[in-house]
């Protein structure tokens, strides 16, 4: 990913938009957050607790599936969720011209 992403929907919105960009940035942030939290809930509370007994009927590599989600799978999912969040927010920051100039810890 390079810094010169000036795609039609990317790039800073026109200056006369006033605070419109803020609302849009915030709405996209919230949408991403809610989507990730739904996955967070479905995998940990859904697969690991609410439907654990049904999933345990399936056994893969010695692991009953519900047990695996509760003790391994949900943790891996949490890592992926934060990774997706950090990458998508970096992109969103750049799109709206509010990114910080340091390159601390990111993949880009």
């Amino acid at each position, binding site marked *: 990913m390079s810094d010169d992403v000036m795609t039609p929907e990317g790039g*800073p919105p026109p*200056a006369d938009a006033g605070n419109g960009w803020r609302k849009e940035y915030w709405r996209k942030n919230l949408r991403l957050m809610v989507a990730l939290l739904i996955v967070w809930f479905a995998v940990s509370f859904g697969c690991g607790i609410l439907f654990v007994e049904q999933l345990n009927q399936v056994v893969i590599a010695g692991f009953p599936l519900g047990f695996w989600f509760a003790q391994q799978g949900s943790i891996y999912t949490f890592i992926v969720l*934060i990774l997706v969040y*950090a990458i998508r*927010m970096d992109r969103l920051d750049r799109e709206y011209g509010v*990114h910080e100039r*340091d390159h*601390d810890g990111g993949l880009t």
Partner: protein
Amino acid sequence: MTETQVWALVFVALTFALYIYIAWRSRVKETKGFFVAEQNVPAVANGAAVAADWMSAASFISMAGLIAFLGSDGSIYLMGWTGGYVLLALLLAPYLRKWGKFTVPEFVGDRFSETVRSVSAVVAIIVSFTYVVGQMAGGGIVFSRFLEIPQAGGVAIAAAVIFTYAVFGGMKGITWTQVAQYTVMIVAYLIPAWAVAHAMTGIPIPQVSFGRILEELNALQAEFGLDQYTQAFTARPQLDVFLVTMALMIGTAGLPHVIIRFYTTKSVRGSRWSALWALVFIALLYTTAPAVGAFTKLNLLDGVQGKAVDALPQWVQNWQATGLVAVSENAETVNSVTNNADEFAAGNADLLVNNDILVLASPEIAGLPAPIVGLVAAGGLAAAMSTAAGLLLVISSSVSHDLYFRYVDHHASEARRLGVSRIAMGLAVLVAIYFGINPPAFVAQVVAFAFGLAASTFFPILVLGIFWKRANAAGAVSGMLAGLVFTSSYMIYTLEVFGTEKHEHIFGISPEGIGTLGAVVNLVVTIVVSMATRPPSHEVQEMVEQIRYPSEREETHA
């Protein structure tokens, strides 16, 4: 001295020297260095420091043992203590970093009111103190087993080392020491786990290979008259598992010593990536722990099953001295095992094994060589000390920054602020040593209390403070108090604290899980009271607006 003790001594001395050296290299001269490490910590290093700060003596020493005895329901700790980082990364870290000052109470003070700040400072101190006592006691267990010195002496040595690096280096010294402690801790945890996994299944990746022994373990548990290991809801009802997991998640995200670590990154962006690194580092241990639990349980049951009392393996004898392992006087051969001292005392089991010894004894149980056993001792101490240091910093900053300078000395010079903060930290260390040696009766319930309180007080008002501009001071005060009163009343009702009578759980909800309902109570009360009173000032609403964007728009600079 036995060979194990020599190795333990070598590893402990080496690692302690390393921590002190690092602290000396990063000593600080001003408050920004002391409280937030100059906000200059790279995301990866900060992630390692969060992981060390977070993974306490309980994570390192007790968790695998707890899981081994709880079986499937042990996942409350695994999901609860990792899932909270998703909430932290998405809901709190970037915004609190953007607002960027020194403490968590300071944020709620600016966002709501000075009253909320003072209440939060006191809650932060209480939560951190209850927690730090457990760390001190955990360090004592390690010392008394491996160096065979009295627990009091062990606690004092650990505290002296913490005192040296925390008081001089503040947050900056703590951060870099924690990076070293994380490394020691994870190496000490993974090496024996790999060795045990390899010895038992031929595959040295415990996360994968413990699947191979689950069936055997289920069968063996059945022979001991226990529930199947992978069977869900044997230790707690489903509703309670749900509530406890949620309470641990939102409690994690609300704990001041965890949140404050996201104030130290270079940028908002750094705080997001730092949360990712933190969880990666934590997951290395947390995905290994259930495997260690399962392997050790299998080894343990297999090693003692049907054995005559005088033919038990050597580790049983080694640990009997600590009182954490005991063989029933009436037993001739071992046919039942428990981790419950009351049940053992009632004569219902032949062998008592305390949760806390499983990780420390795992290399011995599996017959690994002495240096590895010594390494595990150093790792256990690193876990206890890194967390204790982080907690002491929260106590010190709350006492000096949020209380003393607010109310007593408003115009203190930089040098004086630093001096007072160091004295506060020194006193906190002394109090922690005292309670570490003479733990109050309620230490066993500390985890429930600390998490329940953090979940039902801080988390809801922090989230509402960031995401809902309309939340005001009246709402936050009543919400926090309602959550606090509701949660602590139920805990006092169901637990034996300060001589209160223990009552049955209502709807099977345990005191560990009540924090979830306390958080809901807090949330609802905050919203209702905020709506019924005047909205916050324009300035406050503008502040909430500002923390939503990592930096100014580029063209305003141009």
